[in-house]
């Protein structure tokens, strides 16, 4: 054996030890966070699972814990999410496309870019304050589903813009050049190539934004959502012409997290298990939305190869 | 023997080209020496020396095989272009010409072996001096051509090439003398016929020598200066 070989082996052995140590540490940390998540979930399940009966989804809130349900809350959440998506998707995608494909690269667009990123870090209650001043008081939209949806839409806009830009940026420049090389205009390149190839990435971003918005409480409370609502907004579709109406937009509403908040603040422990059950629904909804985002991304990766 | 100042990025390429050049120039040197010895053998009627010259040609043949192999390798592995391509092509053609010179030299030497008294009677023939002069002339031409090739000296190459006409003239005059003497002294005819062949061989050596000078021009300038007449005729 060469004299240096032994030293070399010691060195390699030490490096391998570092590898093993770090691997162990990382795995431990991951397990810890998973454990915390699982504990939260199990805690909610223990407390609330018993309440998750069909009636729970079909009953309005009530003063008696046993009869209270989340009907108005989940309908409110779904309708608010509809408005949020309808507001954030076109604006966010258009802004993202403009920044990536059209905007000249100068100081002004740099400022815009930085601010978009900063907006993502603004506390959600600030959006609530903005909405209260602007939407509720200035534009007199009231404490309505529309106001809530627009507020949350504003809040998730940075997420949509950033994820749109990332999805667009993942489209290789060589593909763009191929299309331009054939004589495509900027708009055609965007419409025929950039958007179709990045749509999965964009939707993923939108869903992640929505799953964040669906759990938001602070801005909704700020704009003055009610905490006790024993009726549903007018149905958006009806059997008589014109079949579709938008009255529901101006309807008062509540959403799942506010319903939860309301129940938690009650002294009766029976309401605590109602809150836990509503929390369970919220968590499952969020997990479901995230799963959908992952599935979309997986499908896009399988379908689109460069 | 290169027209560019810096070496190749791939150093091995330089080495291979240098090696090939070395082989070809050594081959040229050997042939030059063979010719000198053949002429001496002819002058002295030295049959044993003639056998040595004939044997010496074997080595030249071996070198030809080796250089052809190196050339094939260079073409296959380096795909030379520009001056490198010209160098390899020129060396390849030079090898062929040098080998032919070797063959012609062998013919000259073989005369001594063919004659009954080992060619001693040759010394008595009146045109043998003229033969020696021609031999030296061709020998000088060959040395000069190889020199021009080694140094890529185009002025020298040009001079040698122009001298070829003088060589041809000397050959023709010698051929006339031999033919004339054959009529006067019929008993010398067997030897004289062989000497006619020897004269032809020297003339051929002169032609191959001229080719060598033309390769030098091709290598340096990329101009093909051969077969002027044919080119002019084709253009017309």
């Amino acid at each position, binding site marked *: 054996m060469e004299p240096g070989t032994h030293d070399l082996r010691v060195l390699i052995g030490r490096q391998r030890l570092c590898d093993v140590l770090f691997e162990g540490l990382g795995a431990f940390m991951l397990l810890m966070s998973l454990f915390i998540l699982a504990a939260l979930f199990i805690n909610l399940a223990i407390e609330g699972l018993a309440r998750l009966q069909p009636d729970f989804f079909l009953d309005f809130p009530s003063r008696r814990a046993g009869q209270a349900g989340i009907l108005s809350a989940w309908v409110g959440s779904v309708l608010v999410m509809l408005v949020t998506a309808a507001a954030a998707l076109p604006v966010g995608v258009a802004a993202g496309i403009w920044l990536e494909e059209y905007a000249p690269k100068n100081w002004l667009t740099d400022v815009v870019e930085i601010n978009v990123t900063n907006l993502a870090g603004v506390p959600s209650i600030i959006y609530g304050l903005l909405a209260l001043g602007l939407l509720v008081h200035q534009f007199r939209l009231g404490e309505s589903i529309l106001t809530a949806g627009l507020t949350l839409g504003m809040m998730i806009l940075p997420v949509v813009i950033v994820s749109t830009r990332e999805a667009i940026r993942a489209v290789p420049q060589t593909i763009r050049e191929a299309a331009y090389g054939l004589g495509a205009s900027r708009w055609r390149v965007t419409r025929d190539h950039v958007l179709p190839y990045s749509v999965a990435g964009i939707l993923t971003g939108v869903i992640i934004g929505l799953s964040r918005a669906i759990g938001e409480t602070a801005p909704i409370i700020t704009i003055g959502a009610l905490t006790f609502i024993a009726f549903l907004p007018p149905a958006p579709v009806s059997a008589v012409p014109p079949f579709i109406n938008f009255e529901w937009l101006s309807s008062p509403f509540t959403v799942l997290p506010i319903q939860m908040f309301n129940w938690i603040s009650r002294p009766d422990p029976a309401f605590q298990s109602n809150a836990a059950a509503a929390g369970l629904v919220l968590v499952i909804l969020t997990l479901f939305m995230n799963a959908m985002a992952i599935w979309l991304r997986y499908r896009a990766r399988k379908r689109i190869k460069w | 023997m290169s027209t560019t100042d810096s070496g190749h990025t791939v150093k091995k390429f330089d080495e291979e080209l240098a090696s090939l050049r070395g082989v070809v120039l050594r081959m040229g040197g050997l042939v030059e020496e063979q010719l000198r010895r053949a002429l001496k053998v002819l002058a002295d009627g030295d049959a044993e020396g003639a056998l040595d010259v004939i044997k010496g040609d074997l080595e030249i043949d071996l070198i030809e095989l080796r250089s052809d192999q190196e050339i094939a390798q260079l073409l296959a592995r380096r795909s030379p272009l520009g001056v490198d391509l010209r160098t390899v092509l020129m060396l390849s053609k030079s090898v062929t010409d040098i080998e032919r010179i070797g063959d012609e030299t062998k013919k000259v030497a073989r005369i001594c072996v063919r004659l009954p008294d080992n060619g001693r009677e040759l010394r008595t023939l009146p045109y043998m001096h003229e033969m020696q002069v021609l031999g030296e002339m061709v020998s000088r031409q060959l040395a000069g051509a190889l020199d021009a090739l080694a140094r890529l000296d185009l002025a020298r190459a040009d001079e040698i090439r122009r001298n070829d006409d003088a060589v041809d003239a000397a050959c023709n005059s010698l051929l006339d003398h031999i033919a004339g003497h054959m009529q006067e002294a019929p008993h010398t005819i067997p030897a004289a016929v062989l000497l006619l062949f020897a004269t032809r061989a020297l003339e051929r050596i002169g032609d191959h020598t001229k080719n060598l000078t033309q390769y030098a021009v091709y290598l340096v300038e990329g*101009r093909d200066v051969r077969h002027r007449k044919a080119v002019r005729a084709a253009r017309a």
Partner: protein
Amino acid sequence: MVRHFHIDNPTMKNDSSTAGVHIPSARAIESVGAGGFRSDLLRSTSKSSAIKAEVRGLDFHYGGFRALKDVSMQVQANEVTALIGPSGCGKSTFLRCFNRMHDLYPGSRYDGEIRLYPDDVNLLAPDIDPVETRIRIGMVFQKPNPFPKSIFENVAYGLRITGEKRRQVIHEKVEKALRDAALWDEVKDRLHQPATSLSGGQQQRLCIARTLATEPEIVLFDEPTSALDPIATASIEELIIELKERVTILIVTHNMQQAGRVSRYTAFMYLGELVEFGETSRIFTRPAKRETENYITGRFG
């Protein structure tokens, strides 16, 4: 002074300073082989050709960097012209001037002209829409870049851009382009499968078919085989040689043997300048410029 490189003639001294020929004219091309003569090549009856494009005093700047310096040359119609030179010499930049690809990126500026014949328009003129230029001048890129769509849609895309709506016409033209690109037999039974399911060489031929579908006048090849194996490379080269019957071809290549195999004319570029231009057979056997010699023989740096 504007230097013009034109097709050199062995009877003429290879002097690059002679004034350029501004009128596109059929020029007799005489070829003298390197190793020997072929009498049929000596006669000046060989194929004469017209000029497809002429570059005049082209300067190109981007981001304050002068990438092309006073480049002038002629592109012969229905011939393959190769652009060679070390990395960063500007050959790809030069190629991308022909289809105004630089317009996609900010901070670029062209000076000089690229005149396209027979219409005699300056491709670099501000009133010429680069989109129109790109329809007339196709491009094949270094890495095969099919759209993540079906094979059929890839080839049809150019037609759709040019406003072709008739299904029958689109089908015919797609088939013709695929045949021209020697790909039809391999893909005719799976036109609606994704283009990315093809092999690298097939993808590149698909990209060629995509470019051919709209019948461009010039096709620019930017190192088209650098990502391919030798067999796929050979099929692309064969294709290029066949295509020149119908289109004029400019090809950038790092592979000098490739330039030798496919092109009739070669331009050697170095540091943004066109150093030497002439028939490939001459450039590769007896280049006139020291830089060219150093480059083709591998004596650089």
